[in-house]
């Protein structure tokens, strides 16, 4: 008798899954609980303060403003242990952190032992930018995509400031661009020390978006809505915005 390869493979797969189930069910519960997970907790901050949509913030240039929207993509989240070798630690290709949605700021990671450093791409990679319409957090319906000049908005910061000269005193930074010379996705690497094994807290400080080598201020640049030199300068700035928060100083 001749079994087609596909059917055979399917039978084998079912067999393997059944065996796996048996193992899982038969194993004592204590071993299963040792699955190595780590919760990555993201915090949005303005300097040392928690960022809220109500409070006013002040940047280094002395400009005052309130933020109503702060969102950014994280992808390729990787961890490394003592040997310094990075491995993929996240389940999903990309996460969209939103200051107004606390669940979006908690990411479950899988670890392989004690963690010494974390790295991730702030934004999404070029591949995602050139391969059509994606699903999940990368769905263009999430509003983090330019339809007239294809590409993801890696990070968004929007609000209002008396120093803005744009209509409604708004300032709107939609930072994107993936082509050569316009790249705004940035690798972030942070050493992880003295945090509990199952929890890692990162703060994203929006004040870091300003200043930098281009001297970005709300007065000089209230709007950035396209790939190009200004977007790249702001991306260079936001590269500095993350820091590891030591447990205990979490609620300032």
């Amino acid at each position: 008798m001749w079994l087609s390869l596909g059917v055979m493979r399917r039978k084998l797969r079912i067999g393997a899954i059944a065996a796996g189930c048996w193992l899982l069910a038969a194993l004592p519960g204590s071993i299963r609980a040792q699955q190595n997970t780590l919760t990555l907790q993201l915090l949005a901050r303005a300097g040392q303060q928690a960022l809220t949509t109500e409070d006013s913030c002040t940047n280094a240039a002395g400009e005052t403003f309130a933020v109503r929207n702060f969102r950014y993509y994280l992808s390729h989240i990787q961890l490394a242990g003592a040997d310094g070798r990075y491995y993929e630690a996240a389940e999903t290709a990309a996460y969209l952190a939103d200051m107004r949605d606390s669940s979006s700021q908690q990411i479950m990671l899988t670890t392989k032992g004690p963690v010494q450093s974390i790295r991730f791409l702030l934004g999404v990679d070029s591949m995602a930018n050139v391969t059509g319409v994606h699903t999940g957090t990368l769905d263009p319906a999430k509003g983090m995509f330019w339809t007239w000049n294809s590409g993801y908005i890696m990070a968004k910061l929007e609000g209002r400031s008396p120093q803005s000269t744009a209509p409604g005193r708004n300032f709107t930074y939609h930072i994107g661009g993936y082509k050569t010379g316009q790249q705004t996705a940035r690798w972030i690497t942070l050493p992880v020390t003295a945090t509990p094994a199952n929890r890692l807290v990162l703060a994203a400080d929006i004040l870091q978006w300003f200043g930098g080598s281009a001297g970005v201020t709300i007065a000089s640049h209230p709007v950035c809505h396209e790939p190009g030199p200004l977007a790249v300068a702001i991306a260079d700035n936001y590269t500095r915005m993350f820091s590891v928060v030591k447990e205990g100083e979490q609620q300032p």
Partner: protein
Amino acid sequence: MKLRVLLPVLLALIVGGSFIAQYGPRPEITRVPFPQPKGWPKPLYDFKANPLSKEGIELGRRLFYDGRLSKDGNFPCASCHQQFAAFTTFDHNLSHGINNNLTTRNAPGLFNLAWQREFMQDGGVNHLDLQPLAPLTAPNEMGEEIDSVLVKLRTDKRYKKMFAAAFGDTAVTTQRMTRALSQFMLTMVSANSKYDKVMRGEAQFNLPERLGHGIFQQKCVACHPPPLFTDFSYRNIGIPDDPFNSDKGRMKITGKSTDSLSFRVPSLRNVMITAPYGHDGRFFSMIEVMEHYRKRLKVMPATDSLMRKGIPLSNFEIGQLTAFLYTLTDSSFIANPHLAAPADITVPVAADAADHQRVR
């Protein structure tokens, strides 16, 4: 002890069952091959990610003709892309969108999209699947939001069935909607004009057409090469900026001043039924295009090196060239019933139909 044995068996049954439900036999999706014309280059579209199917194409066709994709129900894709005009907007320099708005560019004909790497006349859109999202969300075109279109589709029984038939289950997502639209648009292959028949040895040019073909190969083919009649490059051919509709073209995407007022070389297939011409439809007839090439063009720093002296053309040559361009009209394409509106959909009358009546 008994439980220890039973539990794994039960679990195996559940997992195995769901596995079969997921990967086992399901309602057939009818794959169809891409209608590749003989001797043409390989298409660039990634059919592996979005394989054509009868059901997917049918769904895409309905979406393309359905006014509900626009905010007020009056502006389906087909309101600006009309089949009898090779899917450009018939007799319009600019197209009409929602709330009495005009587009800023002339709608190009839609055909042979599988060979195109970039879309829009500035190349701003990098994938065919992404293209529908631009008009859908533009306040001067369809004025909608992706999420609210998806909600409209999800509450429609027929769409639920069609999405399931095309993609295996009833989920309605941005990706599926745009992939279905792409599947339909990919079947818009225009490769059966008189020119094609001549090339296949099934017909012959008459004398003016043959002379026109010769002139074309001398003076136009550098930018408009067959079989697609475009090399898909972006060039400034000396069309000055219109201060009332300022549009820097390719420069908007690259930010480079060398791309100022550069636009994609358009295909010349079906060109005699897609007037007006140029990215903003400023040339109302073929004669005006020819006049541009031979004397009206304005040389600027970014103007293409091939265009710096214009293209010398005698009246005689213009007549012959035009005769040749007529051979690029594909009448079987614009009459193809598979590309027409589904029988139960009537495309809303163009917003300005009354104006046209008055003129005539």
